[in-house]
């Protein structure tokens, strides 16, 4: 919300604006910024045209003699044509600044010195919306012919102001008005000025009573709490006075005409929206204009002020006469009953509607207005009558029309101020303070909350206050948070991480030391990703968790992390970054099946994803050495088995990762056709592992295994096998045949080509044996070796090479 400082200063003595802003901010009414309006305007004063002559040397110019006060008459050259003798105009003196920061100096025009410049409103930074009484391009001429000369024009036309922008909280709808803020300023200890009214409010001109003119029916008192109406006759539609227009503009409202402007002005003052109907357009029933507050009929039509046509629903509240809807309640008026230049008699409405109903309707018809915003936040129904009367007061004061006596007030259930018993001791307990009860009551009184013993009387505009905690907040915001001593709680607790958090941190540390960079990506995904990844139509990955209201095309929660990784690699690749070694720990999401989650809540799984686009000298085995090192560090025994079913990897270069025969992940080279879809033209290696599985397999309690003091025995074995035999098959046999004695086996050579016939490969292993209880003898080793060789021969057709 924006408030011009001049408005505040009209009501309060403010010596130090900075102090006020600080106090407002620290008591919960945060001042976001201060907009300084017209701050560059300087040395622009009133001057009276004494004489106008043609410029002797320039056809299009005039030379004026201007009285700028203090008995000084100067020559000023101008091109404007709208001036006549005795006009009072703004004069930019030499060394002055006009709009846009332009400096005006004494200047020679074809032999005649001009002492400054005569200004149009544009040169003062405004236009004809601000000053409708004036031409946009001619020199501004003051309407008041009795102005003192040499006076600052900024003061007279209210050209300069500071506007403070406030950030208000939703629990304080009562602050969304100038007087709401004034209430806060008062509570902060500022004294209100005594403001004399120009004229006493009266309505002697018309003898009829409003009750004879209109009748109000509320059909839905649950959604319309109150409806007050008054009537003004013989109005003269015109632009409103400058000061009202200025305040509206500074507060962010565009002026229209005096009637509409006054309703808006009063809304700014008190936060209560008012609406004006052209009385002629409201149908009569039993010789009275009848206003009905009711739900719209199905498919009822209305064309609103903005000339748009709406088809309403049964849940939309409307203001109607007995024939048609006149306005959409609390949101916007109808075009037909709106104020026009020919309007003479006006019905004013000051009503109170259920905020949630207004909000719903406003959303449904797609129109948000200042009024609907105010209703949504909530307005005190006890304001309605006071505010409509204030509006009438202004109408009389500004001589806009003749106010008809009295009002019609339909207020089915009066809202009374509520009370509750407050424990001041509890308030101190909540705050950790020792504020004396007397001081608290004093603070509450400033906030218009009365206390009788421990019973508090809460005004109706503060519906948000219902318990001790609310009172504690009211106390502390005036008492000041800075006056609360910081102390430490004495909760007996120990800082602790979960196993998952510890494992996650370990993995990050290990992968970091292996040269990988951690990435973080979005959990959203574009459903087109499955085509890019070459994933079959019946794959479970396509059974995704879908966002009902996505931003753009990323409308699903990712069911795989592979595309986030490939997108990141692609971004780096296309920025010509080299040596891309990445990993991510992040979730995937899938729909739950019957047994997994009883409430059908989607399942979230944490995944570790490694993605590498190496420069050179890198192959599948390099990647595997990274994962091997990771699992070894985590004390996990993993196996790798060839896997050909993954659509986005190379079928001959992909393996499943297993722990205890359970598949926990996949490792491989990415399918080049998939890479094409991600605009990557280099090889990429990936590994995706289920972190939840890793966490469940990991035992964080490590125990020391004694170092065996007996020596090891190493034997090498060189074999020839068919090419389609996998290393794991050979290694399984070696392990099975040697039982606990095998300490290590290392494939140190693998060869295919010359000297080895087609369809075969040669492999050389170095086997290390050790017994923890004794030194192994050659004889024992020989028996094992023989068993290994025989089994390899029998089961896999392995031949020994010499």
């Amino acid at each position, binding site marked *: 919300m924006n408030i011009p400082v001049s408005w505040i200063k009209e009501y309060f003595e403010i010596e130090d604006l900075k102090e006020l802003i600080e106090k407002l901010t*620290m*008591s*919960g009414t*945060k001042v976001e910024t201060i907009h300084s309006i017209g701050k560059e305007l300087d040395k622009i004063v009133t001057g009276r045209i004494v004489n106008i002559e043609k410029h002797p040397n320039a056809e299009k110019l005039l030379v004026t003699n201007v009285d700028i006060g203090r008995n000084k008459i100067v020559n000023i050259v101008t091109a404007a044509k709208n001036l006549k003798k005795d006009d009072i105009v703004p004069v930019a003196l030499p060394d002055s600044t006009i709009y846009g920061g332009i400096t005006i100096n004494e200047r020679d025009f074809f032999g005649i010195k001009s002492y400054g410049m005569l200004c149009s409103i544009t040169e003062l930074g405004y236009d004809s919306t601000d000053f409708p009484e004036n031409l946009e391009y001619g020199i501004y001429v003051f309407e008041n012919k009795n102005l003192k000369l040499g006076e600052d024009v900024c003061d007279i036309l209210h050209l300069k102001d500071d506007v403070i922008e406030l950030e208000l909280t*939703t629990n*304080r709808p009562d602050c969304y008005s100038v007087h709401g803020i004034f209430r806060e300023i008062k509570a902060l200890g500022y004294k209100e000025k005594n403001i004399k009214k120009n004229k006493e409010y009266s309505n002697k001109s018309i003898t009829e009573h409003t009750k004879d003119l209109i009748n109000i029916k509320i059909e839905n008192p649950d959604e319309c709490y109150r409806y007050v109406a008054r009537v003004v006759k013989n109005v003269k539609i015109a632009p409103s006075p400058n000061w009202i227009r200025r305040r509206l503009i500074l507060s962010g409202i565009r002026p229209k005409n005096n009637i509409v402007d006054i309703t808006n002005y009063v809304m700014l003052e008190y936060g209560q929206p008012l609406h004006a109907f052209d009385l002629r357009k409201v149908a009569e029933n039993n010789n009275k204009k009848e206003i009905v507050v009711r739900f719209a009929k199905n498919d009822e039509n209305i064309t609103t002020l903005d000339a748009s046509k709406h088809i309403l629903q049964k849940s939309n509240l409307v203001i109607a006469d007995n024939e048609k809807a006149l306005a959409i309640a609390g949101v916007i008026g109808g075009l037909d009953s709106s104020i026009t230049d020919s309007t003479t008699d006006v019905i004013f409405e000051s009503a109170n509607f259920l905020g*949630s109903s207004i*909000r719903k309707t406003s959303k449904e018809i797609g129109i948000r207005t200042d009024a609907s915003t105010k209703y949504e936040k909530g307005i005190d129904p006890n304001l309605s009558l006071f505010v409509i009367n204030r509006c009438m007061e202004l109408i009389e004061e500004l001589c806009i029309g003749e106010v008809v006596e009295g009002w019609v007030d339909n207020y089915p259930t009066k809202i009374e101020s509520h009370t509750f018993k407050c424990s001041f001791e509890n308030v101190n*307990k*909540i*705050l*950790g*303070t020792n504020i004396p009860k007397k001081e608290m009551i004093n603070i509450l009184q400033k906030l218009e909350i009365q206390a009788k013993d421990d019973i508090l009387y809460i005004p109706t505009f503060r519906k948000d206050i219902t318990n001790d*905690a*609310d009172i*504690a*907040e009211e106390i*502390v*915001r005036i008492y000041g*948070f*800075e006056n*609360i*001593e*910081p*102390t*430490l*709680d004495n*909760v007996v*607790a*120990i*800082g602790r*991480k*979960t196993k998952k*958090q510890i494992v996650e941190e370990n993995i990050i540390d290990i*992968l*970091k*030391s292996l*040269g*990988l*960079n*951690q*990435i973080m990506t*979005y*959990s*959203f995904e574009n459903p087109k990703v499955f085509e890019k990844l070459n994933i079959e139509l019946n794959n479970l990955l396509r059974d995704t*968790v*879908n*966002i*009902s*209201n996505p*931003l753009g095309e990323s409308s699903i929660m990712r069911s795989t992390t592979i595309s986030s990784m490939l997108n990141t690699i692609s*971004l*780096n690749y296309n*920025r010509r970054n080299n040596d891309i*070694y*990445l990993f991510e720990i992040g*979730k995937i*999401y899938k729909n739950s099946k019957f047994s997994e989650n009883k*409430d059908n*809540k989607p399942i979230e799984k944490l995944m570790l994803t490694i993605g590498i686009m190496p420069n050179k000298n890198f192959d599948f085995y390099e990647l595997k050495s990274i994962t091997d090192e990771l699992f070894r560090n985590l004390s996990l025994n993993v196996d790798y088995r060839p896997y050909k079913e993954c659509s986005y990897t190379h079928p001959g270069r992909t393996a499943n990762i297993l722990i205890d025969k359970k598949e926990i992940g996949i490792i491989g080279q990415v399918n080049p056709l998939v890479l094409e879809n991600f605009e990557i033209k280099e090889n990429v290696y990936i590994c995706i592992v289920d972190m939840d599985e890793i966490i469940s397999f990991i035992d964080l309690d490590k125990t020391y295994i004694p170092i065996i003091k007996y020596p090891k025995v190493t034997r090498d074995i060189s074999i020839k096998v068919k090419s389609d035999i996998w290393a794991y098959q050979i290694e399984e046999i070696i392990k099975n045949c040697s039982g606990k004695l095998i300490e290590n086996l290392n494939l140190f050579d693998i060869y295919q080509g010359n000297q080895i016939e087609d369809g075969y490969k040669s492999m050389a292993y170095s086997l290390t044996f050790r017994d923890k209880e004794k030194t192994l003898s050659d004889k024992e080793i020989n028996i094992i070796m023989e068993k290994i060789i025989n089994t390899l021969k029998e089961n896999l057709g392995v031949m020994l090479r010499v």
Partner: protein
Amino acid sequence: MIDDIEQIRLKTKNKIENINNLKDFEDFKVSIFGKKGKLTDLMKNLSILPKEERPSFGQTVNILRDELENIFFLKQQSLKQSLIKEAFEKETIDVTISKKNHHLGTKHPLITVMDEIKNIFLGMGYQIVEGPDIETSYYNFDALNIPKVHPARDGQDTFYIGTDFLLRSQTSPVQVRTMERGELPIKIIAPGRVYRPDEIDATHSPIFHQIEGLVVDKGINMSNLKGALLSFVREFFGKDVKIRLRPHHFPFTEPSAEMDISCFSCINNDPSCKVCRGEGYIELLGCGMVHPNVLKMSGINPNVYSGFAFGMGLERIAMQKYNIEDLRLFYENDIRFLKQF
């Protein structure tokens, strides 16, 4: 005989001067000390000497042996020295050349900052608790005292998954889940990913991270909250940083406040300061005393227990810490960015 000894001494001393490689040195050494060497030969003469001359001759030969051994030792040292010197010269490389083979990877900057924050709270006795990204309206709104009709529940402020679920728009559901478990006292922080339908720009992202704290016990008050926040801020931002609590409103706390910290980047509210824009303070987090309704809904008696809660955005803090002006950098993962941390 004695002359022979003198001869050997002189000749050896002369010859050894001219030796300049290890092979000649070893050969010469054998020719003196070896089985057929000159000293052995000399000792062979011992038997032909008259008995009374033998002791003094033997003594003289031994003196010669000691002397020669010393000469050979010194020669060997100097030979080694000059040889190694030669080798060093030959093997000299340009040590100013860099050939990088080992790379240490990096932790994501958001995780680094998150860890730093976690560690401070761990030290203050807080447990780290996590919760699901996909939540129900109950945990994300109802149990947090957020009215049934509230803008935060709109599709413009919360992502929905069908009618039953949503993507949590704050980490507060973790607080509710923890309170529901009913194990008191509670002293936790809940870090995690949260979701809001904001279009991506330099300061907004539909996905970001929050860290929330919650302490519930008998007698917890606002003064404790201030103490906890002050301890955290001093540890994280520095000892001289001041805090300021401003009253605010959140449905789940009462009283509520926003906490600002004094600008750590400038002195005297410098208007050109990029961090505080001349305000002198930076908005850091929201906090307050847990609303009695929130305690009640989670099965905790608000007449016996009270609590405080606070929540902050990780990205904002990381941006301030590293002077990063565009939030998108965190999720783009350009390795030139990642490798700086």
